[in-house]
C-alpha cells in the first residue's frame, strides 16, 4: 500500500481530515468532518506499515466488522469504514472529554462515587452484551462519558460478536489484552464467555476503591497465570472501613470460576444500584485470602476440572433475567396475590439464574403532604417492605435472588415503568385488578405497563367467574 494519504486537509470518501488528535501504538486518531453530518467525528487509522504488530491489523479488522453493527447510547455511532484495499479507516462519532484513565491519579475514589461509576459501566456492558458482543478489553481507557453521564464503551479491537467470525481466534497463540484486567479463563484461550467482562469490571472496581490493582501489574504470562488459582487480597484487608456489600460485589466479580460470578452485567448493575439489598455471604467478611490448601488444590487439580460448556452471550442473558413483580398489598385480593406468586414460581423454577425484584408502590397524594408514619405511628415504607418479604416467603428463594422495593409515587404505572427501565428489567409480572372502582376511575395500571414497557409483560388474572358476564348481558337485554 502507498504511503498514508491521511493528512490535514485531505478528503477521504467525503470526510475532510482535520488535526491528528492521538497517535497510539495500534492506530492514529484524526478529527474529521463531513458536511452532511452535524456532529464531531473521529477517523481511526490503523498502523499497517512493515514491521508493525500484525495484531494492529487484525484488531482493526475486528472493529471494522463490529462497529457498524452496534447501536444505542453506550457505543460510539459508526459513520463509515474504509477497507485495506484503499485506505483503511473507521469513522465514529467523537465523544468529548477524557477516558476514565485520566482519573487514575485521584484513586482511590470514595465508595459512593465508585459505586455509581461502576453501576453506569455495568449498565453499558449489559447493553453491549445484549447486542451479542463481548468487549474483552474493559479497562479505564476504554470508558468514556456522554454529557448526560451515560457511559460509552470504546475500542472493540479485541471484542468478539456472536454473529461474526472471530478474526482473533487463531491469530495469536497468547491471549491478547490488558494484563491487569484479564479474566483467568482468557489465559486458557476462552473467548466466548461474557462473564470475562465482569471480571475485568471487578478489577476496575477493586482498583478504583482501594487504589491497588488486585493482581498487580504483571505482564508476563507466568505472572498472569497465578490468577487461575490465587485469589486477590480482600479489600477489607487493605481498608478496614471497606463496606461489606461492596466487598461482596467486588469479590463476586473476581471469582476464578465464571459461574461463581454474576450471571449477567445487568444483575451486577442491579446490585450496585441497590447496595442495601446485596445479599452478604462469606465473601463480604473475608479479611484473608484463601488458605494455601485451597490454592494448591486449585493449582494442581486444574486438569480435574472440566471446562464448563458456555452458552452463547444471548443464551446466558436469556437464562438470567431480572424479573420485576408488582405486588399490590393494599388493594389486591389474596386470590390475585396468590396467582402472582404461582406465575413467579413457574418462571423462577425454569430459570435458576433469574432474580426477582418485588415492587410495591406507596401511592402519594397529588396534593396532600404525605406523612411517613401512619395513624398508628408505624413507618409505612418499612411496613410495606415487611409485607413484600412476607408475600415472597412461600417462594423460598435464596436471598441472593430476591430483592424488595417500595417506590413512592403519585402514578404507580409510571413508577413501575421507570423502575424497570433503570434496572434493566427483562420481564414485568403484574396483576390485573378486577371490577375495581379505582380502575374505572384511574384507568388500568397493567394496561399502561403492558403497552409502554420495553420488555415482556405478563398480566396475571385469577379466573373470572364465567357466569357473571353472561348474566350481565342477559340483564341488559
Amino acid at each position, binding site marked *: 500500500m502507498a504511503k498514508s494519504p491521511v493528512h490535514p486537509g485531505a478528503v477521504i470518501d467525503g470526510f475532510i481530515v482535520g488535526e491528528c488528535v492521538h497517535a497510539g501504538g495500534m492506530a492514529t486518531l484524526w478529527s474529521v468532518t463531513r458536511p452532511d453530518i452535524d456532529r464531531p467525528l473521529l477517523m481511526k487509522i490503523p498502523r499497517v506499515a512493515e514491521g508493525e504488530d500484525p495484531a494492529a491489523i487484525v484488531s482493526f479488522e475486528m472493529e471494522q466488522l463490529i462497529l*457498524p453493527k452496534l447501536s444505542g447510547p453506550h457505543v460510539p455511532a459508526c459513520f463509515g469504514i474504509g*477497507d485495506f484495499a484503499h485506505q483503511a479507516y473507521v469513522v465514529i462519532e467523537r465523544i468529548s472529554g477524557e477516558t476514565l484513565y485520566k482519573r487514575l491519579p485521584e484513586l482511590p475514589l470514595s465508595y459512593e462515587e465508585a459505586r455509581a461509576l461502576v453501576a453506569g459501566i455495568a449498565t453499558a456492558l449489559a447493553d453491549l452484551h445484549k447486542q451479542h458482543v463481548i468487549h474483552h478489553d474493559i479497562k479505564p481507557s476504554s470508558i468514556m462519558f456522554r454529557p448526560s453521564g451515560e457511559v460509552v464503551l470504546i475500542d472493540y479491537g479485541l471484542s468478539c460478536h456472536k454473529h461474526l467470525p472471530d*478474526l482473533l481466534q487463531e491469530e495469536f497463540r497468547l491471549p491478547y489484552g490488558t494484563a491487569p484486567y484479564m479474566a483467568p479463563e482468557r489465559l486458557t484461550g476462552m473467548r466466548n464467555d461474557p462473564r470475562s467482562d465482569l471480571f475485568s469490571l471487578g478489577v476496575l472496581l477493586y482498583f478504583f476503591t482501594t487504589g491497588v490493582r488486585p493482581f498487580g501489574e504483571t505482564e508476563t504470562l507466568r505472572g498472569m497465570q497465578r490468577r487461575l488459582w490465587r485469589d486477590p487480597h480482600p479489600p477489607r484487608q487493605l481498608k478496614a472501613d471497606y463496606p461489606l456489600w461492596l466487598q461482596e460485589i467486588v469479590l463476586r466479580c473476581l471469582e476464578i470460576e465464571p459461574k461463581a460470578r454474576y450471571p449477567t452485567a445487568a444483575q451486577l448493575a442491579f446490585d450496585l444500584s441497590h447496595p442495601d439489598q446485596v445479599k452478604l455471604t462469606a465473601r463480604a467478611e473475608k479479611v484473608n485470602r484463601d488458605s494455601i490448601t485451597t490454592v494448591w488444590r486449585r493449582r494442581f487439580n486444574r486438569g480435574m476440572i472440566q471446562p464448563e460448556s458456555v452458552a452463547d452471550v444471548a443464551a446466558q442473558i436469556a437464562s438470567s433475567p431480572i424479573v420485576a413483580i408488582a405486588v399490590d398489598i393494599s388493594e389486591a385480593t389474596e386470590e390475585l396475590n396468590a396467582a402472582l406468586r404461582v406465575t413467579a414460581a413457574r418462571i423462577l423454577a425454569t430459570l435458576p439464574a433469574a432474580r426477582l425484584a418485588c415492587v410495591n408502590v406507596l401511592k402519594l397524594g397529588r396534593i396532600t403532604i404525605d406523612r411517613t408514619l401512619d395513624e398508628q405511628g408505624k413507618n409505612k415504607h418499612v411496613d410495606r417492605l415487611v409485607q413484600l418479604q412476607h408475600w415472597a416467603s412461600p417462594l423460598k428463594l435464596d436471598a441472593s435472588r430476591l430483592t424488595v422495593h417500595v417506590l413512592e409515587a403519585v402514578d404507580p404505572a409510571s413508577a413501575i415503568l421507570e423502575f424497570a427501565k433503570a434496572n434493566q428489567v427483562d420481564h414485568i409480572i403484574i396483576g390485573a385488578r378486577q371490577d375495581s372502582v379505582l380502575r374505572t376511575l384511574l384507568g388500568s395500571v397493567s394496561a399502561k405497563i403492558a403497552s409502554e414497557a420495553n420488555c415482556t409483560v405478563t398480566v396475571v388474572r385469577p379466573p373470572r367467574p364465567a357466569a357473571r358476564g353472561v348474566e350481565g348481558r342477559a340483564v341488559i337485554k
Partner: protein
Amino acid sequence: MLLALFSDIHGNRPAFAACLEAARARGAERFICLGDIVGYGADPEWSVETVMELVAQGGLAVRGNHDNAIGSPSESMNADAQAAIDWTRARLSAAHRQFLAELPMSVEDEDRLYVHSDASSPTRWRYVQSAPDAARSMIATTAQVTFCGHIHRPALYSLSATAKMTSFIPTSNAPVQLLRGRQWLVVAGSVGQPRDGDPAASFLTFDTRTREVTYCRVPYDVETAARRIRDNGLPPWLAQRLILGR
C-alpha cells in the same frame, strides 16, 4: 448488485422454488448456481430447466459431481447416490444432459470465484470441511472471495494477510462484511438436502457493493419433497434425511 447463490439443489423442487421466491423477495438481481442441480431429489427436469432459464437471464452455473455423473457413469458414488443418478439420467432430456455436461468447473467473476468444491483441484471433488481444507482451496486462487458448496453445511473461512485461518459457523440472516484485507471462503449450505440438522433450505446472498454475505434459511414443504422421492421409488433414506436435515 445483490447476488443470490444456490448450491446442492439436488432436484428438490419445493426447496428450490422456496429459495428462489425468498431471494427475489430480498431483491436478488443475479442468480448463481454452485453445482449439484440434480441427484437425490425427484424433480431433476424442473430443476435443470430452472437453472437453464436463470443462466439465459445472465446467471452463472458451475458443475457439481452429481451433474458430472449424469454424463460420466464412472463417477464413484455411494449406493443411494448411484441409484438416484441412474434414475435421474433416464428422466433428463438430451438438452438437459448437454447443459449439465457443458457446465464449467469454475467461473471467475470480478474478484469472486465460483466452484462446487475445493478450488485447488475442482475435478477431484474434495470436501472443504475444515480450516486446513479451506486454506488449501484459498491458497490455490487469487480470488478474494471463493463461493463453494458440496458439503451441505454452511461455513465461513478467512485467511489473513499473515496466513492465519479463521473458521466460523454463520448465523442465519446475520450479514457479515467480507473485508478486503483477507481472502474469504464462503461455503454455502444446501438448497435441496441440508445436513446441518436444520431441514430448512439454505442459500446465500452477496451484496457486491457492501460486500456483505448473508446465509439465509427458508422453511419449505419438506413432506412433499420426501413423498415425491418415495413415490418415485428412490431410496427411502433420501426422503427421510430431508425431514431430519441430515
